[in-house]
């Protein structure tokens, strides 16, 4: 089956800054496609080109059969977006915003009333429906933004960091609603900085960095792909000199060592059960008391770190 979204050397420059750099992606119909990358990687810029809000500098994208540079009006009939920053006039009310959105998306007045009410209730905004958005918290505004797409149910739904600023109960509710939207036949593009969110929701994820695609595959495959099937996190009493990190790397079966914090190392390795005693021995020998040791499976965090070369902390600081 032909992919429902296909980008072909999609590029966007802002002056001399290349925000999106010859991106080639294919998104299959019916999947939840996670779109990851550190701040400023170019996620939002890519999505805005898909929904034809901004024009590519070079290359193009196909939304269904439509080329976004040639037939943007037609492309927009297939695609909808909940923006990263809620796009709302502060004087309007959730009811007005959502009712108008439903109307402009072509819903009949009966269907509109039903869906708007449903979304407001599900997202806990029903009692606030006639209050002006001016007095809303960031999380409440974000809920109004996400409600748009849940009401619209477009063939392709873009959600840009759908649960940023949302409390944990709300997060789970929104995740379930995103899954339900997919089950009803929508393809979902989920841009996020939360790797856990991408992991639990996505069928496939793409990681981009500085506008370029680094990898794209199922989360499970990506986790398996990074060298070393196991991860050990060691917290030490004091800072670890880089010389020690190098010596650790020389130990047999250790694939990579990453200083997550000055006193915390992440060790990627094979057959952890056998290597673990040698690691503790090593730290004793170099007089580095160990505070704690934890073994884990690789997570998307590790995949992210592996491919971007940034630690999660660095990525978030940028």
């Amino acid at each position: 089956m032909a992919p429902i979204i296909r980008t072909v050397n999609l590029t966007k420059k802002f002056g001399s800054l290349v925000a999106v750099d010859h991106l080639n992606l294919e998104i299959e119909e019916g999947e939840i496609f996670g779109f990851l990358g550190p701040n400023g990687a170019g996620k939002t810029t890519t999505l805005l080109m898909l929904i034809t809000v901004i024009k590519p500098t070079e290359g193009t994208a196909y939304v269904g059969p439509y080329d976004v540079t040639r037939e943007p009006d037609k492309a927009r009939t297939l695609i909808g977006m909940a923006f990263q920053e809620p796009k709302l006039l502060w004087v309007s009310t959730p009811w007005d915003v959502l009712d108008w959105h439903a109307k402009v998306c072509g819903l009949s007045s009966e269907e509109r009333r039903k869906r708007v009410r449903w979304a407001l209730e599900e997202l806990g905004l029903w009692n606030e429906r006639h209050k002006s958005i001016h007095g809303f918290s960031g999380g409440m505004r974000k809920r109004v933004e996400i409600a748009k797409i849940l009401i619209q149910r477009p063939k392709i739904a873009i959600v840009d960091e759908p649960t940023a600023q949302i409390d944990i109960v709300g997060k789970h509710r929104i995740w379930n609603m995103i899954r339900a939207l997919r089950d009803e036949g929508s393809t979902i593009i989920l841009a996020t900085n939360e790797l856990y969110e991408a992991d639990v929701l996505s069928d496939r994820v793409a990681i981009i960095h500085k506008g370029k695609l680094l990898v794209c595959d199922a989360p499970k495959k990506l986790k398996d792909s990074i060298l070393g099937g196991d991860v050990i996190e060691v917290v030490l009493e004091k800072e670890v000199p880089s010389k020690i990190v190098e010596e650790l790397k020389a130990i047999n079966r250790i694939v990579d060592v990453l200083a997550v914090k000055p006193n915390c190392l992440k060790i990627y390795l094979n057959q952890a059960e056998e290597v673990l005693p040698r690691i503790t021995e090593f730290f004793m020998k170099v007089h580095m008391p160990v505070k704690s040791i934890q073994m884990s499976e690789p997570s998307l965090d590790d995949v992210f770190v592996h491919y971007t070369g940034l630690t999660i902390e660095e990525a978030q600081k940028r």
Partner: protein
Amino acid sequence: MISLRNVWIVAERDMRTFLRYKVLLIMRAIWFLAQIALFGLVVNKMLRPDVQDAVGGNYFHFYVAGIVITLLYSTAVFIGYDIFEEADHGVIEYLLSVPISRKELVLGRSIGGGLRSFIYVSPMMLFALYLIGISNPLQLLVAFASLFLFTFGVAGFSITLAVSIKSSDKFDILLGVVDALIVRLSTTLYPIAYMPDYYAALAKFNPLTFAADIFRWGAGIESALITSPWTAVLGIVLFFSMFTFLGIILHEKRIEGGGWQ
């Protein structure tokens, strides 16, 4: 293909938005009444009979009709400010993302921005007609239809300006200048007979002159016309078409790609 339903959905949104400016709406109405009851009446008393003749016999009537047109202009231009308010909150991007065409969007906004000003000014227009008197209902109907188009043209003009400037401060200043010139270089407030030639030359091509002329013609103040009413109607239609068209083109070219301040 343009869907009228979509155009209307956009227009209706702008009309609703207008209702939020309660203070502005009240202030404008007070301004209108003050201009008529104070300025209009006093100036009328100051004028010699020969001046009164140049404006169709009664400057007060001439002035009331002109004030209606300036009010129509200044409320129709308001849509440009809405665009900046929306740019501040990213709503422009949202509007570009919904499943309607750019043409429907711009057309809807011109119509919404125009219609809301027409509806708002209507009671004042009727009050003006009550003061002036109605002589030819058919002419009045033609005048109304033309003014209707005039407001869309002004809204389209405002949208075009807002989209080409992209900065609310500059827009504010520029609109102030345009406002000062376009009103003063027209026949809204005084007859062309008393303008120096080079002012008159400009005033003859001013859409506000056309609008004022056509309203006066509709109200039966015929001797105040500087051109035939049909020239004025044509001028308004051209003005409307040009700015709706420009608005659409610029919307496609300038809005995408960001850069709003």
